[in-house]
């Protein structure tokens, strides 16, 4: 019997062995079902990756791949010598760090405060209302903020005038210094409720016995929050913090795109808008691709570094297979 077994084993090594052909036949429907989506993912996700080669070419649309002139790192050098590039990099980092500071800590505070509310109906009402803005588009949020901050009959100016803090309505959207603050505020307004869900779930997972024994020991509300709630949600906090750091450069561009105007350009334009304005609107394809590639590479490095640190420090990795 042994030789037969050996043949069978050897056969398994070949792709077109009898066993594999039989298996292919058995799985023809699975193959049929995956085929369109393999083609889809290659076309829509991998061909754009191949498009990175544009960054190293004097790219002219319409010409074949081999007819393009290769220029090496020319566009990267141009980019790193462009002052405007450093300006958009500053804006990107400034807004992402601001949103990391406020967009990350305030939902934790909200979750802790919500947890202290004993009236369940009231708690649920706050939750339902505060999750809502997460689901509306940035176009709508920009439209709402535009109205609220408007100089004619915007509620913010009305309040400031009524309290006599300002004499004249403030043109919020036209002040470059305000832009980072407005975008961060809009971001917090939109996401605070939604981002608190994960921390609320973490708080709900803390054993009630811990609180009971703390009560017996005479711990007050703040002591309980400090010694039980916060340590209890620390692993979740770490994971979310690390994920946010990984996404530091991917802050998107919708809010900046929708809230910017020509007066605040120096503070509003982020990397993606730089790519959009230079690459697509101005038709500098190769240059735009180089800038996009820079962004993707920084983002990948950040994600993997953050994940590595998280694995070491908290023993929790986000990247799972």
């Amino acid at each position: 019997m042994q030789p037969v077994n050996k043949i069978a084993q050897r056969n398994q090594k070949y792709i077109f062995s009898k066993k594999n052909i039989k298996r292919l036949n058995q799985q023809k429907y699975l193959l049929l079902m995956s085929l369109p989506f393999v083609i889809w993912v290659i076309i829509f996700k991998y061909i754009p990756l191949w498009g990175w080669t544009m960054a190293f070419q004097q790219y002219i649309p319409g010409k074949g791949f081999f007819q393009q002139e290769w220029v090496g790192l020319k566009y990267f050098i141009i980019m790193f010598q462009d002052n405007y590039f450093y300006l958009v990099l500053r804006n990107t980092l400034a807004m992402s760090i601001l949103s990391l500071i406020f967009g990350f800590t305030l939902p934790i505070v909200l979750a802790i405060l919500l947890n202290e509310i004993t009236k369940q109906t009231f708690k649920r009402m706050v939750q339902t209302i505060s999750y809502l803005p997460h689901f509306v588009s940035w176009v709508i949020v920009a439209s709402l903020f535009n109205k609220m901050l408007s100089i004619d009959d915007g509620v913010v100016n009305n309040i400031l005038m009524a309290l006599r803090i300002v004499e004249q309505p403030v043109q919020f959207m036209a002040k470059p210094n305000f832009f980072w603050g407005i975008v961060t505020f809009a971001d917090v307004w939109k996401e605070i409720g939604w981002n608190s869900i994960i921390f609320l779930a973490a708080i709900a997972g803390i054993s009630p016995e811990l609180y009971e024994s703390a009560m017996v020991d005479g711990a007050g509300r703040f002591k309980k929050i400090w010694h039980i709630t916060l340590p209890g949600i620390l692993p979740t906090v770490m994971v979310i913090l690390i994920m946010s750091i990984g996404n530091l450069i991917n802050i998107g561009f919708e809010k900046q795109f929708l809230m910017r105007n020509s007066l605040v350009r120096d503070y509003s334009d982020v990397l993606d808008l730089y790519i959009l304005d230079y690459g697509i609107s101005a038709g500098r394809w190769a240059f735009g691709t180089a800038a996009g590639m820079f962004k993707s590479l920084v983002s990948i490095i950040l994600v993997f570094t953050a994940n590595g640190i998280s694995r070491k420090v908290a023993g929790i990795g986000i990247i799972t297979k």
Partner: protein
Amino acid sequence: MKRMSAADIIFHTFNYLLMIILMIATLYPFLNVLAISLNNSIDTVKGGITIFPREFTFLNYAEIFKTKALLTSVIISVLRTIIGTFTGIISTAMVAFVISRHDFIARKAVTILYIITMYVSGGLIPEYMLIRNLRLTNNFLVYILPGLISAFNVIVIRSFIDGLPFELQESAKLDGANDLTIFFRIIFPLCTPAIATISLFIAVGQWNSWFDTYLYCSSNKKLTTLQFELQKILLSAQSSGQQDIYGSSDLAQKRVSPESLRMAMTVVATMPIVIVYPFVQKYFIKGLTLGAVKT
């Protein structure tokens, strides 16, 4: 049951007050815009509208449905949401199903192909060139095809399928069912909670997106979406005061100002979400925790 100390009372007052402020801050902009959209636009200019309209009118809304470009945009938005969600969820679930099958010969290859897309993407310009080369610009399909599947959603549904007993599939197979039948008759119906959640996320994403219209379909008036039209009117308002981009020049005759029109459009764009939101809230939250389990 519990005695309230003075510190407790202060804390609770402060806490409740803060939560009430949060709720007002969240709701007021929506209610204010709703009130303005229902108010006569000449009266609105006088100012002072808070959350109730002063001179009630539906004129601003009538203007949306009278302006052909806007009516078309509403229809396109609805169509892309329905078609995009339907095709998206079937595709996502199908990929999730094939990579959940441990016996599948190409399981690893397909899984890796999709997982990689979660970490790297070609970026704006290569994607733009691809869409152009595929002749998808000014084509309705650009709303459906490029964003058909998200790897993250695939993982969420796959982990749900992993939780179903495999014996179900085995016994169906003994009864002579093929994998296609197993998917449509057994797996898809059993995944309803996950499917519902992911469908909602896809639908919200479809309804809210405007950037694909901006990039690929802005020159075709028949294919613009409501969110894009709103973005257009918003940007024109920001850059040059109150400009009238829909050519409804005779204000006195139309009695609708661009600002009031924008407010009405904002309400129309928000409405579907606000209407379905209370009913589906639990699914949304379930979706978040579904994802959190895996990550």
